[in-house]
């Protein structure tokens, strides 16, 4: 039995795998999203939140994915730093814009949910602020990547920055316990099992899976593009030499 990163570390094998895995994940994402949205829109209105509970089905998955994408970015950066593997660096580089997109979605949908529920677009509590900081980390990562011309140096510098930023993730996750605020506490993973009614929990989990599948598909597509870009770069420098 060969482990997944080891199996995919070979670029040829990765390209062969992602060729069918990317569309598969994409199709899976569409199916899961359709099911999740159908169940979500047929669910009864929440007695407290009314119709706005529908925003939860796209806000919570985006918030989870903003952290999940950073987690993937961190792992890929670690692998690229330790094994100096080009594919791991391509994976890290490709995860950043996707993660930034999910983080922006989490912030915007959260704001659109907060306005009718709390009567304000934005609350400066630790959790929201941490997500904003996560967004800034994505921006800093992409800025550093584009400011360094030497690609191997950029890869290592960005990997170091990603690992430094990884200490930010626990702060995002646990800050909700440090500060009491308008933001509701952790509902899904609260002590004693989920507190949410199954009519809401099932579509929510389906949407989380849909977002994850979509992230997987887009990630694979971007890594493929990155591999081709490097092949084109290599071919160009070979052509220039002869």
């Amino acid at each position, binding site marked *: 039995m060969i482990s997944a990163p080891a199996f995919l570390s070979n670029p040829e094998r990765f390209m062969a795998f992602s060729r069918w895995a990317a569309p598969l994940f994409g199709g899976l994402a569409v199916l899961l999203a359709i099911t999740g949205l159908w169940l979500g829109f*047929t669910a009864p209105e929440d007695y407290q939140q*009314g119709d706005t509970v529908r925003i939860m089905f796209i806000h919570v998955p985006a918030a989870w994915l903003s952290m999940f994408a950073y987690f993937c970015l961190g792992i890929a950066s670690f692998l690229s730093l330790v094994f100096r593997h080009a594919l791991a660096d391509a994976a890290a580089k490709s995860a950043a814009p996707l993660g930034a*997109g999910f983080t922006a*979605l989490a912030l915007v949908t959260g704001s659109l949910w907060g306005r*009718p529920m709390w009567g304000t677009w934005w609350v400066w509590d630790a959790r929201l602020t941490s997500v904003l900081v996560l967004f800034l980390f994505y921006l800093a990562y992409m800025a550093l990547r584009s400011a360094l011309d030497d690609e191997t140096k950029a890869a290592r510098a960005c990997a170091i920055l990603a690992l430094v930023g990884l200490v930010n993730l626990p702060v995002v996750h646990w800050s909700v316990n440090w500060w009491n605020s308008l933001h509701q506490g952790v509902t899904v993973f609260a002590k004693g099992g989920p507190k949410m009614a199954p009519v809401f929990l099932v579509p929510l989990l389906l949407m989380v899976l849909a977002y994850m599948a*979509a992230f997987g598909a887009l990630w694979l597509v971007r890594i493929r*593009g990155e591999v*081709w870009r490097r092949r084109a770069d290599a*071919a160009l420098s070979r052509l220039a030499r002869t």
Partner: protein
Amino acid sequence: MLDLDFGKYEGFIWAAYGISALVFVLLTVASLRFSAHWKRQAEQLKAQEDARS
């Protein structure tokens, strides 16, 4: 029963779904175009190289 009548929250809910859909479309189009562009580029350069050797 499909419930698409959101009463007074209509604006917020449609805006949230609209923006999410827009971001997904943009991310998908950008990723596919990026990938397709460099695939074409890599194959062209490979063909050039093969032609030269």
